[in-house]
């Protein structure tokens, strides 16, 4: 049996705007194995969200367009699917949990309406079965008195509860892949710990294959199996999480780790990465990171580095490694 459930190769998603072509995703490559949690890590504007949206083709088109690359889900190429086929896959085979629970929920529909909507759409169940399924999903997520929550409107729930509702909703049709886009970003640390616990449980109990998008490397260390670090629309380093954290190779990954303040110690200045993330319309020539890189060489501004395998599981795109 093939162990790879999703294979993204050389994906390029561009947005054709009046001010120029935004190369949001510019040659991303990764594979997701069954039961694995893959983290896409990067700062805002690095293309991690657009990568996720491209998998389900959830961006506006136009201006957005997948100009190149393949997304193989099992044996289907998602880039070649018709809209009708995509509609079958979205929510049923591949589900998404969005970042802002507040704006992802419809404020004028009850939680029950929203959670049953996609069950009705995808599964051949009776009315009362659908309701029972929704209630059991909510209680699985640790929501107290799920029967009454079904008739609540989103404003009646706290941020953490809304995030749980979204996760319950995404799991409602037993998806094969779950894409979570920064589900822990807008919540408090105690709630963050609760949400991470849910994802940990999904992995152990349901063997869920998850793409977890985050900017927080500490979160990656907590739940990820493998991580792909993204910068300027490209994945610059991919490796098992333990390796990313203990022996990072790409100067950007090294910078990201060093610039985090640490709760276990406090000392002097933080090593920051100089400069800011590049403008996606005018990406730097060569390696997109070279203007901010502490180890920049002459070749970096001229030639784009190719992906180099350091070991079977660790690859990096940087001229330092050949």
């Amino acid at each position: 049996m093939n162990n790879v459930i999703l294979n993204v190769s050389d994906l390029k998603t561009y947005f054709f705007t009046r001010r120029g072509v935004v190369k949001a995703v510019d040659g991303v490559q990764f594979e997701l194995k069954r039961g694995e949690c893959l983290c896409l890590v990067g700062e805002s504007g690095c293309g991690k969200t657009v990568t996720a949206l491209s998998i389900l083709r959830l961006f506006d088109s136009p201006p957005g367009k997948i100009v190149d690359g393949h997304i193989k889900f099992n044996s289907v190429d998602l880039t070649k699917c018709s809209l009708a086929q995509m509609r079958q896959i979205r929510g049923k085979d591949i589900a998404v949990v969005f970042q802002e629970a507040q704006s992802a929920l419809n404020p004028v529909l009850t939680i029950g309406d929203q959670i049953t909507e996609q069950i009705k759409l995808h599964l051949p169940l009776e009315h009362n079965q659908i309701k029972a399924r929704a209630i059991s999903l909510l209680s699985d997520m640790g929501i107290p008195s799920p029967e009454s929550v079904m008739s609540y409107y989103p404003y009646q729930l706290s941020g953490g509860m809304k995030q749980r509702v979204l996760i319950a909703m995404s799991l409602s049709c037993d998806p094969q892949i779950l894409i979570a886009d920064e589900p822990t970003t807008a919540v408090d640390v105690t709630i963050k710990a609760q949400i991470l616990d849910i994802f940990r449980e999904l992995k152990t109990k349901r063997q869920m294959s998850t793409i977890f998008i985050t900017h927080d490397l500490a979160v990656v260390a907590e739940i990820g199996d493998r991580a792909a670090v993204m910068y300027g629309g490209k994945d610059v380093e991919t490796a098992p999480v333990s390796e990313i954290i203990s022996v990072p190779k790409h100067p950007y990954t090294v910078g990201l780790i060093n610039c985090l303040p640490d709760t276990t110690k406090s000392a002097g200045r933080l090593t920051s990465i100089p400069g800011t993330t590049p403008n996606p319309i005018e990406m730097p020539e060569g390696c997109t990171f070279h203007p901010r890189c502490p180890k920049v060489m002459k070749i970096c501004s001229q030639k784009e580095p190719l992906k180099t395998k350091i070991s079977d599981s660790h690859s990096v795109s940087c001229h330092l490694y050949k």
Partner: protein
Amino acid sequence: MKREVNHKLLQIVDLKKYFPVTAGIFSRHVGDIKAVDGVTFNIGPGEIVGLVGESGCGKSTLGRTILRLEEPTGGKILYRGTDVTGLDKKGLRELRRKIQLIFQDPDASLDPRMTVGDSICEPLVIHNIGNEKERPRRVAELMEQVGLDFGQANLYPHEFSGGQKQRIGIARALAMNPKLIIADEPVSALDVSIQAQILNLMMDIQENLRLAYLFIAHDLSVIRHMAHRVAIMYLGKIVELADKNELFENPLHPYTEALLSAVPSFKPKDKYRILLHGDVPSPLNPPTGCHFHPRCHRVLPICNQVEPNLIDQAEGHFVSCHLYKQSTIP
């Protein structure tokens, strides 16, 4: 006694800020949201006090009340020994020169129709400092201090990145030569690589100008990096206050313990985690006794009946919890 007063830059004594809740067509007063409910602490000159808590715990309201952007319901705020709560308009204007605020969202705190040079200059104009010739020089100096180029003074906020906008916010706060800066989540809207730049900048400024900060944040690792002393807030009250190292290495309050253990870390495997259940209760109807008792993992029978006082347990390590000895004098 007088010496003690002068030694402290800012003293906050039993500060309260209640927001009334009304109902019905006659706007009947049905209750209060006790956003800040009896907070007492000091900030010394050149000291960084970190204020941590989850959203809704009242930490931003506390910061705003110190500047009297919110009228306090009760208690005292002493700036260099003078009570701020009784100040008139003129006195307030003077106070707001000495205490400045840096906001969380640099996007929302800058006027999009003003060039950043004008924005930085605005406080100088309002307070009538310098003349037409001197002000641009001061603006250039301020911009340089925060790592911006004076050549960018004629640009508008949208032409800057988030980190640069936060630098502009800092330059603006520095324009008045303040003694105390209240920084309300100054880095939580920024990317990690930019966050490090801003934290370094704020530390440099603090060292060079000997400023005091009240640094409000929910991120404990940021607080550990910046603060000298740390106060932990829960539902309008300070539950623990101690020197940074003492607090992080020897937390006494169960809430602090839980907060520290909840922080994601690079070495998750060898860590004991206390998972808090439920959410922060509504401040409109807080639990009786200790507000934290419904979520506490070390709850005692007394906790839902008697509210604990904030008591010094060991050389400036204050905690408000029934697990530790209580005295009758708060």
